[in-house]
C-alpha cells in the first residue's frame, strides 16, 4: 500500500475546541464574488422578462446543452455533494448506493416523461396532468403535491445552509446560523424576483460548471496521490478506517431486516422520484422543442453521472486521507467530509472555493424550487382555479412575484426551525412524496387511455397523504435516537422511508379510482393529448425578442 502522503500536514484542526477550518474571511470573500457575478448576470438576463412565458419558462429559449447543465445544477444539491461524499467516507459502499439511484432515475425521465411532457404542457406539471381530465380538481391536486414536494426540498436545503456555515464560517451559535439562513433566503428572493426563470437558469448553469469543475479537480488530485489506481485508493481507505467492510455494502443498511427493507424502500423512492420532481419537470419548458428536451436530459445524464463518479473517488479519498473519526469530530459532522478533503488537498484557497461552490449550490437549488412553487401557485391555483382563467398574463406574473416573496419568507422561517434536522431525510422524503403523489398520475395520463379524473385525484391525494402519514408515524419523527420529537413514541411504522408502501398504493389507487368511476372522459381530449405528446404538434414555441 502506498502511504498516505500528506497525513502530517493537517494544520489548524485542533481538537480542543470546535473551530472552523481555513479562513472564514476568504470563504466569505469568494462567496461574495460569486454572488456579485451572478447578480450582474441575473440583472442582464432579466431585461427580457415581459410575458408569463418569459418569467416562468425563460421564453423557451435555452438550448438543450444549457438546459441540461442547468438541470445538473438544479439536481446536484448540497445534499448530493456534501451528503454523498460524507456518506461514502463514513459508511463506504452504502453511500455509493445513493448516487446510483439518483442517476439511474434519469432514465425514467428520458424514456417516459421529458419529451411527452414538453409537448403537452406550458409552465407547470399540472398543465400536463389536467390536459384531458377535469381542470379544477386535478389542477388543485397537482398544485398541492407540487407545493408539498417543493416545501420539503426547500426545508432540506435551508437546513443544510445552516449546517454548512457552522463549518465554513465558524458560526456555531443558533443566532448566527439563523442570520446566515436569512441572508441566503433574501438573496434567493432577489434572484428569482428579478431574474425569473432566465436568471435562475443562469445561476444554475454557473453553479453546475463550478461544482463539476471543483469536484473534477479534487478527483484528479486524489487519484494522483494514489497512482491513478482505484484499487490503491480503496486499499488506503481500508487502511485508514481499519475496516475492510467499507468497500462492500451493508455498513449502514445491513444491520437488521428492517434496515434492509428500509434501503429497498429508499431505492424505490430514489429511482421513481426524480422524474416526478416538479422543479425538474418545469425545466423542460425552458427549451423550444421536445428534441431539445431530450438533448437536455442527455446532457444532464452525462454531467450528473460524471459527478457521481467523482463523488465515489472523493468519498473514499476523504476516508483514506482524513479518516472517519476526524470527519465526525468536525463541526458539520458527516457533511464536512468534502470541505475537509479540499482543505487537506489544497489548503485554505481550495477550501474557500469549494465552500463558495457549496453555498452557491444551495442558493441555486433554492431559487429553482421557489420559482417552481410560485409558478404552480400563480398559474394553477390563482389564474386557473380562483380566477377561472380570466386573468391577463401580467396579473398572473404579478401574483407569481408576490408568491416568491411569501415562499421565500416561509422557507427562511422553516429553515431556521429545521436547523439541526437530518437533511438527507428531508430530501429522501421529498423524493418519496414526489414518486407517490406525482409519478403514477404522470405515467397514467401519458400512457393509459382510460385513465380519468377520479383516478388522478385518488392517486395524488392518496400518494401524498400516505407518504406524509407514514413519515409522521416513522422513527424519523418519534421514538428513535435522532427523532425530530424527543420524549414521545408514536412510531407505528418501522421504516424511515415510506416509498415501498406509498408508491405502490398510489399506483393502485389510480387504477381503482379509474375503474370505479362512472364518468367517462372526453375521448377527443385523450386523442389530442396523445397526438400532441408524440408529435409535438401545437406545442408551445419559443418567444422571440
Amino acid at each position, binding site marked *: 500500500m502506498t502511504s498516505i502522503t500528506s497525513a502530517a500536514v493537517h494544520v489548524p484542526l485542533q481538537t480542543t475546541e470546535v473551530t472552523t477550518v481555513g479562513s472564514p474571511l476568504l470563504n466569505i470573500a469568494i462567496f461574495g464574488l460569486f454572488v456579485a457575478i451572478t447578480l450582474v448576470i441575473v440583472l442582464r438576463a432579466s431585461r427580457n422578462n415581459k410575458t408569463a*412565458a418569459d418569467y416562468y419558462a425563460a421564453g423557451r429559449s435555452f438550448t438543450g446543452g444549457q438546459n441540461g447543465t442547468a438541470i445538473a445544477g438544479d439536481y446536484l444539491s448540497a445534499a448530493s455533494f456534501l451528503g454523498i461524499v460524507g456518506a461514502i467516507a463514513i459508511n463506504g459502499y452504502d453511500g455509493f448506493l445513493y448516487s*446510483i439511484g439518483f442517476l439511474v432515475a434519469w432514465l425514467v425521465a*428520458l424514456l417516459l416523461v421529458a419529451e411527452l411532457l414538453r409537448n403537452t404542457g406550458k409552465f407547470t406539471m399540472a398543465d400536463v396532468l389536467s390536459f384531458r381530465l377535469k381542470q379544477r380538481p386535478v389542477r388543485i391536486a397537482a398544485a398541492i403535491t407540487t407545493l408539498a414536494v417543493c416545501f420539503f426540498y426547500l426545508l432540506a436545503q435551508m437546513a443544510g445552509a445552516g449546517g454548512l456555515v457552522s463549518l465554513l464560517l465558524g458560526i456555531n451559535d443558533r443566532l448566527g446560523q439563523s442570520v446566515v439562513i436569512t441572508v441566503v433566503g433574501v438573496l434567493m428572493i432577489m434572484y428569482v424576483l428579478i431574474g425569473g426563470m432566465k436568471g435562475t437558469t443562469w445561476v444554475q448553469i454557473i453553479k453546475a460548471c463550478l461544482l463539476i469543475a471543483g469536484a473534477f479537480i479534487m478527483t484528479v488530485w486524489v487519484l494522483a496521490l494514489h497512482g491513478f489506481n482505484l484499487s*490503491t485508493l*480503496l486499499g488506503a481507505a481500508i487502511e485508514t478506517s481499519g475496516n475492510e467492510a467499507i468497500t462492500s455494502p451493508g455498513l449502514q443498511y445491513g444491520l437488521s431486516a428492517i434496515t434492509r427493507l428500509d434501503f429497498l424502500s429508499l431505492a424505490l423512492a430514489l*429511482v421513481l422520484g426524480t422524474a416526478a420532481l416538479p422543479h425538474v419537470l418545469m425545466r423542460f419548458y425552458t427549451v423550444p422543442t421536445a428534441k431539445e428536451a431530450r438533448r437536455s436530459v*442527455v446532457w444532464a445524464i452525462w454531467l450528473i453521472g460524471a459527478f457521481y*463518479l467523482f463523488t465515489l473517488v472523493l468519498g473514499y479519498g476523504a476516508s483514506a486521507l482524513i479518516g472517519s473519526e476526524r470527519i465526525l469530530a468536525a463541526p458539520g459532522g458527516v457533511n464536512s467530509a468534502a470541505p475537509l478533503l479540499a482543505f487537506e488537498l489544497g489548503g485554505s484557497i481550495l477550501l474557500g472555493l469549494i465552500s463558495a461552490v457549496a453555498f452557491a449550490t444551495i442558493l441555486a437549488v433554492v431559487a429553482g424550487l421557489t420559482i417552481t412553487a410560485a409558478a404552480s401557485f400563480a398559474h394553477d391555483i390563482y389564474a386557473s382555479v380562483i380566477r377561472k382563467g380570466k386573468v391577463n398574463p401580467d396579473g398572473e406574473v404579478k401574483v407569481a412575484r408576490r408568491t416568491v416573496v411569501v415562499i421565500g419568507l416561509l422557507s427562511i422561517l422553516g429553515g431556521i426551525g429545521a436547523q439541526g434536522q437530518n437533511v438527507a431525510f428531508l430530501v429522501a422524503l421529498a423524493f418519496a412524496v414526489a414518486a407517490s403523489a406525482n409519478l403514477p398520475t404522470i405515467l397514467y395520463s401519458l400512457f393509459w387511455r382510460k385513465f380519468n379524473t377520479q383516478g388522478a385525484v385518488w392517486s395524488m391525494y392518496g400518494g401524498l397523504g400516505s407518504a406524509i402519514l407514514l413519515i409522521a408515524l416513522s422513527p424519523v419523527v418519534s421514538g428513535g435516537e435522532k427523532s425530530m420529537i424527543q420524549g414521545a413514541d408514536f412510531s407505528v411504522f418501522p421504516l424511515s422511508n415510506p416509498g415501498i408502501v406509498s408508491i405502490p398504493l398510489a399506483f393502485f389507487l389510480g387504477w381503482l379510482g379509474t375503474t370505479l368511476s362512472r364518468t367517462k372522459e372526453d375521448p377527443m381530449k385523450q386523442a389530442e393529448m396523445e397526438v400532441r405528446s408524440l*408529435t409535438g*404538434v401545437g406545442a408551445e414555441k419559443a418567444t422571440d425578442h
Partner: protein
Amino acid sequence: MGSHPVEPVAGSGAAVDFTEVQQTEQFKELRKRHRSFVFPMAVFFLLWYFAYVLLADYAHDFMATPVIGNVNIGIILGLLQFVSTFAITMWYVSYANRRLDPIAANIRHELEEAAPEAFIDPAGGNK
C-alpha cells in the same frame, strides 16, 4: 380501424379532429415504435437496477468478493450501473433520431399545413 389520411382535417379549418389523426396508420406506427422501445427498455433497466439493489442489500458476501486488488464485485456492478445508464441513453437518442423524429415531424407538418390557424395560440402564449 380505417386508415384515414391526415388530410380530412383541411376542410374544417377551425379545429383539428385528433381522434382521426390518432387512427391514421402513420400515427399508429409512430406510437408503436415509441412504445415498443421505451416500455421494454424501462422494464429492463428497472429489473437490472433492482437486481443490483437486492444483491447489495442481501448478498453482502457475494458483493465483497475481490476481483482485482481491492476492487470487488460490488464496485464493479455499481460501475456497470453507470455504464448501462450511459449506454441506454445513447441507444435511445440514436433510435429516436432515426425511427421517431422523422415520422413525428412528418405528421406535425401535415397537420400544421392542413390547419395552420388551429395551431396559433390566440391568447399569445398564456391562458
